[in-house]
């Protein structure tokens, strides 16, 4: 592996971060805020580390798979480090641990926060916080791939490292075209939602910040009460619609825009995704009516928002689900683990893997009953390769193992089991809120510092689809340096 190649490609990512930091800094200057210097200074640091490798190291067109993976993972890590600088420099509640946690939560689009009072932050810093979602949502590398046309084979290697197998399957375009399609959908959805939010009475900064958080399925709000602050059915409906759209494969959205909305529903994955959310909403609403004496419209409104928010790994809140009945909580935990579709900005195990997992179990059971039968697993009439099935089962198992280990570690730090488990599941799935002390209207501030570090690393594992980071950290990867 060649360090200068890795540093050069990371340089592009840092330059991108530098530009966005500068934009947030300008907002701070316009509002005469104390976060202006932290943002500009952080931008300068990113510029130094971004520009210098580009100046020194010449462009390289051939990148190995290991180098590609290292670039992607390192880009994530360095972005999180740069992202924490404005918080540390601003001070307030941001210790090093808290700044790291908030930055990782932003870039991995988790949306868990250590802040008990979000509204004390200057607007520039709030904007930066939301921007980290937006940058992270699309994968920093996709941005760069879409912008730099000359990366060639190098670009393809980076693309394969960044984008999951399921997404690559669906997008039958050349790498650069695929990246540009994903980016155009991403930016398009953000702009449309921003406009609609402004029509609902939100200011431009709030509208942008909430749109960033929605399309990236992140969940950072500019208000302590999250979306509930606005107390607007219109805003909730817009947010629900865009959360649902952000949970669908972007390539599928693109083809639906071109060939009609019916295309969306031809995908069994989308049908399962929407169907499960509808069933979940109805069940939860029923529980709220039965146990909390809510009327059906209110119960349905709260249930629809929370289930969509959790089911797409966004994490916005309009109600405190800590007080919901046990069955409702279990349903929410299911969605925390599953989340939405591959090829979206959502986290979690993903609908496809859950379906594959279920079908693999079904296949095995049939094979036990009919040992000589050849049974294929199909999705949308397409036979799924056994290696893909194996990978899906392995992923689900490892995913749950990570959640379990994290729960154990947090419980060992005297965190109550419900908070430990739900917080671990929420961070691993990049969802955001859990239950207990890390509930939908609470925050992760009260957790011990070591617990925050554990959760921040499982956020990264979740965002990088586990194996990306595992391979990066493996001794074999580091042995190949030259």
């Amino acid at each position, binding site marked *: 592996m060649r*360090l*200068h190649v890795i*540093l050069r490609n990371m340089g592009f990512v840092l330059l991108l971060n530098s530009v966005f930091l500068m934009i947030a800094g300008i907002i701070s200057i316009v509002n005469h805020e*104390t976060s202006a*210097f*932290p943002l500009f*200074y952080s931008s*300068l*640091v990113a*510029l*130094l*580390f971004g*520009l*210098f*490798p580009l*100046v*020194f*190291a*010449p462009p390289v067109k051939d990148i190995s798979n290991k180098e590609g993976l290292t670039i992607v993972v390192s880009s994530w890590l360095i972005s999180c480090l740069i992202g924490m*600088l404005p918080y*540390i*420099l*601003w*001070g*307030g509640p941001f210790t090093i641990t808290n700044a790291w946690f908030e930055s990782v939560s932003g870039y991995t689009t988790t949306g868990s926060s250590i802040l008990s009072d979000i509204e004390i932050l200057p607007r520039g810093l709030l904007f930066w916080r939301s921007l980290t979602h937006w940058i992270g949502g699309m994968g920093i590398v996709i941005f760069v791939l879409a912008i730099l046309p000359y990366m060639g084979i190098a670009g393809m290697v980076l693309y394969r490292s960044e984008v999951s197998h399921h997404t690559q399957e669906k997008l039958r375009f050349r790498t650069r075209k695929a990246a540009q399609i994903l980016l155009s959908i991403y930016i398009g959805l953000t702009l449309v939602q921003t406009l609609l939010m402004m029509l609902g009475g939100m200011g431009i900064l709030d509208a942008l910040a909430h749109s960033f958080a929605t399309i990236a399925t992140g969940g950072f709000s500019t208000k302590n009460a999250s979306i509930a602050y606005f107390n607007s059915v219109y805003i909730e409906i817009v947010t629900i619609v865009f959360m649902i759209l952000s949970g669908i494969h972007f390539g599928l959205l693109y083809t639906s825009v071109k060939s009609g909305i019916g295309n969306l529903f031809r995908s069994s994955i989308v049908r399962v995704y929407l169907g499960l959310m509808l069933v979940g909403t109805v069940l939860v609403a029923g529980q709220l009516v039965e146990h909390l004496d809510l009327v059906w419209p209110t119960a349905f409104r709260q249930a629809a928002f929370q289930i969509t928010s959790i089911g797409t790994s966004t994490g916005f809140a309009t109600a405190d689900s800590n007080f919901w009945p046990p069955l409702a909580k279990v349903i929410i935990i299911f969605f925390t683990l599953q989340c939405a579709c591959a090829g979206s900005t959502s986290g979690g195990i993903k609908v496809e893997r859950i379906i594959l997992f279920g079908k693999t179990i079904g296949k095995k059971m049939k094979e036990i009953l009919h040992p000589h039968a050849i049974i294929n697993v199909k999705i949308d009439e397409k036979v799924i390769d056994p290696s893909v099935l194996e990978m899906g089962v392995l992923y689900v198992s490892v995913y749950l193992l990570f959640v379990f280990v994290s729960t154990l570690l947090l419980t060992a730090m005297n965190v109550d089991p419900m908070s430990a488990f739900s917080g671990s599941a929420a961070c691993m799935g990049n969802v955001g809120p859990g239950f207990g002390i890390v509930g939908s209207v609470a925050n992760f501030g009260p957790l011990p510092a070591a617990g925050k570090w554990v959760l921040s690393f499982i956020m990264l594992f979740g965002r990088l689809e586990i194996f990306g980071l595992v391979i990066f950290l493996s001794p074999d990867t580091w042995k190949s340096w030259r």
Partner: protein
Amino acid sequence: MSLRWKILTGFLLLSLLLAVAGIWSIYHFNFLGGSVQKVMDENYRSVDASITMLEALEREDSAILLYLLKNKDVGHRQLTTADSLFRYGLNQARANITMPEENDLISAIDQTYLQFRKLFSTLLENTGEDTDLDWYFNEAHRTFQDTKLAVRTLMQANDSEMYRQGVQMKDEANRASMPGVVAIIVALFFSLIFSYFVHYFMIRPMLKMINGIETYLKTGSLPKLNVNTQDELGKLAISIQILCSKTDLHRDDQ
């Protein structure tokens, strides 16, 4: 880009970073120093004035008791002195209003003290028939306690303000020192990366060229130098290859 500009770019950016961090730290430390002075001048002065008033009130209270216990000369003198001391403290507090609510607090002290003063003035003018210990406990001491409470409220308000400013100064100190800390860490990492680039893109090509020339001198054949940088070193490698080819041609001609 030439070697000179490559190296200069890195140093220029790092210098800019260090300069900005330095200027910002100096600005914030100056601001911090000013804030400390402000807290001492403003809030602590009000606290000091409150302590003076409380001391004066205690003396007045004991003076009243002395007077009631027939030690009229000492009591009278003490009351007069303590009254001057209280009014001195009150004027100090009035001249040092730094918070919006301080005005109201001082007015409250003024009013309750006027009532208290009226009472002990009555005592001084009175022959003592209805100014006995019952009068002291039911009226004088009660008004004394009210005045004391008003003064304590002023003191607590200034204490809280001092605490708030202390927290703010802690944040300011953090904001002053953090850019410096970040600059140091950045400089350390930058120097590591810079050293790597200098080794890989300058020292290594130079070593390749040196080895190449030595091989040429020993064997008469120049190996491929593989120096592809678009700077002076790349040009030097090309020049060496041209020189060696021309030398070979000259040797062949001979």
